[in-house]
């Protein structure tokens, strides 16, 4: 039995809710009662004032009693504003009920006593009291007491004989009775309709809530299923990494032993064959490790082992490891780190791995040139980062290939892949590892001139979402990054200056 005038209803709700103080609105039951209270106070006086109006018309000599009645009915309009201003809902509701009793008994007293045509309004008292105050026993008792007191006073005044016979004739009294009864019925109907609407909306709310609960249960099930699938995936990855690495380690280890045997016996031919098995084994192991690491990152299962690390030894170690590879390509590998570069908190293993990938890339694509490694700090506080830069004078990267450089299985073009050999996984993995630590790898390059890769990692961990996709960039956007580098170059370090000139 809900009334539905969508727009007017919304406007009505807005109007009603405007008067309800926030602390009242927070409690659903209180809000329901306050809404009933406000509907009755906002619209009630329109209907109630019909009675004094009728009295004014029908009574040949309307006196102060009509004015008092009209004033106290109109007084109901003050209540919503007082409620908004000071709250104290229950006190206001009780005062309002008192005022209602006064209006009704006042009009009864002056117009016919216990046979007054305004007597039907007495029915609205318990009804409104229920609407306003709900079912709290204490409040009910208070209302009952007020009722009794008011009737006692009313009765007392009647007994004292203060009631004057109304100066209205029988027809006028009948007219008043008609108007009064219709107005009272209208009033009760209005309140009942509104109450029905409130109940209906509560039902809707409950249906909606049940829907939400069902959705939540479904979500929980889906999450559990996903977790199971995730656990299975993690399990698979762990098993695979063990199952793949164990035989590979045997191939590498035993070929190493045989190689040492062959070297002892000066068997060059066997040694060269074993050398191939050994290096192919190493290559395969590296590929397997990279694929497994990439899968782990993709599956969101790569864990970070954060710890304080010293940057200088990490760089020196990396340089020592790549000196051989650099010499093979007749390159000069130099380290230009500031000695006071200090330490940072990050996953040292992953930072080392990322640096290795970048160094590997540089040694692979540079011949008869220079590879220069440098480190510096940038930014302060939470934005503080460590920059590890590897510049080479190698073949460089064509501008068209730069955007896809960090995608998996991208190695310049096919011809360079066959000439220089590369897995196409290294840079992708390096960048993903850096992003996992809240950093990134940036690249600047000019074909035929050289490339500069910069590893950026926060000096204190800023963790990225583990499942980091390539299209998202938690790191520093390249344009800002270049500008920042340029700015640093101006005031700080001559080594970056050289870089900026080379890769302008």
């Amino acid at each position, binding site marked *: 039995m809900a009334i539905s005038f969508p727009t007017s209803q919304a406007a009505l709700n807005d109007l009603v809710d405007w008067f309800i103080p926030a602390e009242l609105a927070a409690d659903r039951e209180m809000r329901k009662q306050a809404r009933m209270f406000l509907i009755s106070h906002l619209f009630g006086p329109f209907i109630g004032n019909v009675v004094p109006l009728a009295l004014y018309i029908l009574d040949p000599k309307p006196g102060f009693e009509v004015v008092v009645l009209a004033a106290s009915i109109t007084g109901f309009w003050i209540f919503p504003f007082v409620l908004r201003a000071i709250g104290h809902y229950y006190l206001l509701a009780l005062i309002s009920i008192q005022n209602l009793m006064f209006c009704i008994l006042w009009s009864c007293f002056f117009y016919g006593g216990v046979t007054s045509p305004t007597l039907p309004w007495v029915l609205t008292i318990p009804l409104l009291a229920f609407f306003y105050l709900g079912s709290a026993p204490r409040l009910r008792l208070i209302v009952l007491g007020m009722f009794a007191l008011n009737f006692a006073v009313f009765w007392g005044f009647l007994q004292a004989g203060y009631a004057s016979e109304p100066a209205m004739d029988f027809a006028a009294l009948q007219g008043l009775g008609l108007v009064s009864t219709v107005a009272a019925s209208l009033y009760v109907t209005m309140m009942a309709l509104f109450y029905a609407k409130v109940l209906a909306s509560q039902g809707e709310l409950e249906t909606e809530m049940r829907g939400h609960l069902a959705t939540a249960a479904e979500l929980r099930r889906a999450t559990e299923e996903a977790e199971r699938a995730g656990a299975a995936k993690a399990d698979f990855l762990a098993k695979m990494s063990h199952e793949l690495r*164990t035989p590979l*380690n*045997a191939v*590498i*280890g*035993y070929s*190493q*032993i045989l190689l*040492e045997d062959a070297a002892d016996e000066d068997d060059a031919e066997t040694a060269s064959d074993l050398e191939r098995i050994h290096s192919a084994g190493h290559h395969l192991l590296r590929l397997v490790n990279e694929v497994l690491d990439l899968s782990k990152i993709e599956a969101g299962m790569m864990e970070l*082992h954060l*710890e*304080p*690390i010293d940057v200088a030894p990490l760089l020196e170690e990396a340089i020592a490891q790549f000196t051989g590879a650099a010499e093979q390509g007749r390159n000069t590998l130099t380290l230009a780190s500031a000695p006071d570069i200090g330490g940072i908190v990050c996953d*040292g*293993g992953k930072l*080392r791995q990322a640096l290795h990938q970048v160094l590997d890339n540089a040694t692979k694509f540079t011949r008869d040139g220079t590879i220069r490694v440098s480190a510096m700090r940038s930014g302060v506080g939470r934005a503080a980062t460590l920059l590890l830069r590897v510049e080479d004078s190698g073949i460089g990267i064509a501008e068209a290939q730069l955007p896809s450089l960090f995608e998996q299985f991208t190695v310049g073009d096919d011809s360079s892949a066959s000439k220089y050999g590369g897995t196409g996984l290294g840079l992708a993995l390096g960048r993903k590892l850096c992003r996992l630590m809240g950093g990134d790898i940036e690249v600047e390059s000019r074909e035929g001139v050289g490339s500069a890769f910069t590893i950026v990692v926060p000096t204190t961990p800023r963790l990225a979402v583990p499942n980091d996709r390539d299209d998202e960039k938690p790191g520093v956007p390249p344009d800002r990054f270049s500008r920042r580098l340029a700015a640093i170059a101006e005031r700080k370090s001559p080594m970056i200056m050289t870089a900026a000139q080379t890769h302008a």
Partner: protein
Amino acid sequence: MHKILLVEDNEMNRDMLTRRLQRQGFAVCCAPDGPSGVAMAAQETPDLILMDVALGEMDGWEATQLIKSAPRTAAIPIIALTAHALSSDRAKSVEVGCADFDTKPIDLPRLLGKIGACLQKAA
């Protein structure tokens, strides 16, 4: 000839490292788990122990602590072998009384350097 005790649970790794160390002129004895490693240390009193950290039930740290707490074996230098180059592992190895620390996979020249340094210090 120096005697080295290798405590390592992977049979293949044990075999490979044993043979490579023997080729370098060391006498090598092996133990496949923590308890037998502790027992063999007392029995053989090697000059040096290579201790894999990731061993089944009794891990390498625990075995090291047991070896270090027995008067007969307390002086034997121990080099811990871990899969990760974490500084927490490094700190742990110092805490339990290891003489040094190396990471797997084994880089033989590097490990030989560490073995040499430990033996020299002990002598």
